[in-house]
């Protein structure tokens, strides 16, 4: 007798509850499943992603930018990049989208306990780290010092300003830099690596979490290694084109690994074994 198998490809409806405009290109969408019981029972972990459906646009993977310690809503921070994300930027509060997930290997939160955490991000790269950071803040006694190094193109491109202010208030060491200054900007100008000059992390109890464009990523890796971080102490989350999200369609292949199920979170030690663009010289 054929048994019933869950339709893993079927999205569920979710409602846009709130939209936070982060900058001209990035917005954070606060979403809740229309099925209340499902929404209440829905669980995920920082670093995981959702497959988002938009009418006539298909699906795209978007990392969750909220923390599971605050259940009831999923935050997706989205940069305008293609057709689907452009359509998302046309959403209004009350509109519905399709969601399935959560998918992927999350950040190993247990391993991070008691550690000093160094978050290094560029642009939209702060989105997947935002969930980790908020988790740490909600369980403040379980983690060591928290430092955020964040690079943007220009001061007006700085996203997550509300979060940065809030994090600062809660004692997070947030340092910002821009590639190109604008009038009124008196802080750091330069690559995000320039923010690392003044850092003196306690190496034995530190872990770095990086997310950003490939060029930035490689520069940061170089600096971290030079500072004495071991490959196991560096975590990152990889961006790839995905279709199924569940390890079958193979669009997100990474030299034998699949970003959707083996990642998207990887340690640098794991990535070093792979022939992938991000690891090329």
């Amino acid at each position: 007798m054929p048994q019933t198998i869950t339709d893993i490809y079927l999205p569920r409806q979710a409602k846009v509850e709130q939209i936070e405009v982060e900058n001209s290109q990035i917005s954070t969408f606060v979403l809740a499943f229309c099925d209340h019981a499902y929404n209440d029972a829905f669980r995920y972990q920082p670093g995981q992603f959702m497959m988002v459906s938009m009418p006539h646009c298909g699906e795209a993977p978007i990392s969750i930018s909220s923390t599971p310690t605050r259940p009831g809503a999923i935050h997706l921070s989205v940069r305008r990049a293609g057709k689907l994300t452009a359509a998302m930027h046309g959403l209004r509060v009350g509109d519905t989208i399709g969601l399935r997930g959560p998918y992927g290997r999350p950040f190993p939160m247990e391993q991070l306990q008691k550690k000093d955490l160094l978050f290094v991000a560029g642009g939209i790269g702060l989105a997947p780290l935002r969930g980790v950071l908020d988790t740490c803040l909600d369980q403040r006694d379980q983690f060591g010092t928290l430092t955020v190094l964040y690079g943007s193109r220009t001061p007006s491109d700085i996203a997550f300003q509300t979060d940065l202010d809030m994090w600062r208030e809660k004692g997070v060491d947030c340092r910002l830099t821009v590639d190109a200054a604008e009038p009124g900007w008196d802080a750091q100008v330069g690559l995000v690596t320039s923010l690392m000059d003044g850092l003196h992390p306690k190496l034995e109890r530190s872990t770095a979490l990086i997310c950003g464009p490939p060029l930035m990523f490689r520069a940061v890796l170089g600096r971290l290694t030079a500072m004495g971080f071991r490959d196991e102490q560096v975590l990152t989350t990889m961006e790839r084109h995905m279709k199924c999200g569940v390890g079958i369609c193979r669009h997100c292949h990474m030299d034998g690994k699949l970003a959707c199920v083996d990642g998207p979170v990887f340690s640098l030690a794991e990535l070093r074994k792979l022939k992938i663009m991000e690891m090329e010289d």
Partner: protein
Amino acid sequence: MPHASSMADSHLLKKDHLKGFLRKLAKEYRLVAPVRNRHGDVLFTVIDDLDAVEIELSEPPQNSLKQFFLPQQEQLSTYTITPEGYDFQPTKATIPPTVYFGVHPCDLSAVLYMDVVFSRQQRDPFYLRRRQGSVLIGINCNNPSPKCFCNATGSGPFIEMGSDLQLTDLGDRFLVETGRTSGHTLTERWQGFFSPSTDKDRAARYQAFLEARGRFSRQVHVEQAIRRLEADTVPDEVFAKLSLRCQDCGGCAYLCPTCTCFTISDQPLDAVNGQRLRSWDACTFAGFTVMAGGHNPVQAKTGAIRQRFTHKLRDDVRLTGRPSCVGCGRCVGICFGGTDIVRFVERTCQGSL
């Protein structure tokens, strides 16, 4: 009729009675078998009228069973956009239970591989629904075609497992081995068609196997290529040269019985209705990995070609213990430029270790 309870039970089916047996099966199942069409091509075909077609077992079919379990295009869901919301409805496709008759060992191996792909990480409902209602009747290859190299991939010319019934051509009769309980059920249900086999028949099967093994016209050193890929000693130049000649047609992936990469896309039917489709894709296309905004983490053709061969001959060996190339040679026949897996193996094995 006496029958042993062991799984590796074997019987005889006279060729004269094959059609009669298939007619019985066709009453309860949809029947798919290799048929020669009017242009001379042998293809696995859904048979509506057994008397209208000639089943062709001597020549490997041009298609594999892939299209029956993973159709070239299938609907995953439909959606509607209303003021109340954007809602998906599951596809209610009914898949008739099907007998696949005359499946060569390479294609049987491919189905076993697909079983892993579609149930390893997550159970794929569409594949498994098709697969659950299926009966596989295999035929061992007495005469491998000049393109075949299943002897080098461990997937032929004879196969011990994978099918429900496994046939070996012994001239005027088939030796029928029941591989699985379901195969057992078939021989019991229609036991009138079968007679007991003797040691002589089993010896004849072994003889046919030995002869078939000697009939391969090409030696493809798949094992050696696997070792070199695992040891990372395949020169980049091999991939670079092969990729230069890839004509980007995707033919290798579409014809390959184990290439299961797919894409999912929405097809609007009107302003407020649409369907979500899954269709075959190929990792050799640049668009396979390109991300929104145009960035492609797999740079140039070389990376895509490397992925194709590394996946088949290294990653899947790590996963299942054997390559997912089943040695059917279909990609060799279709390739425009000479970027097929046999060439890859040959070039990889050139020169000293």
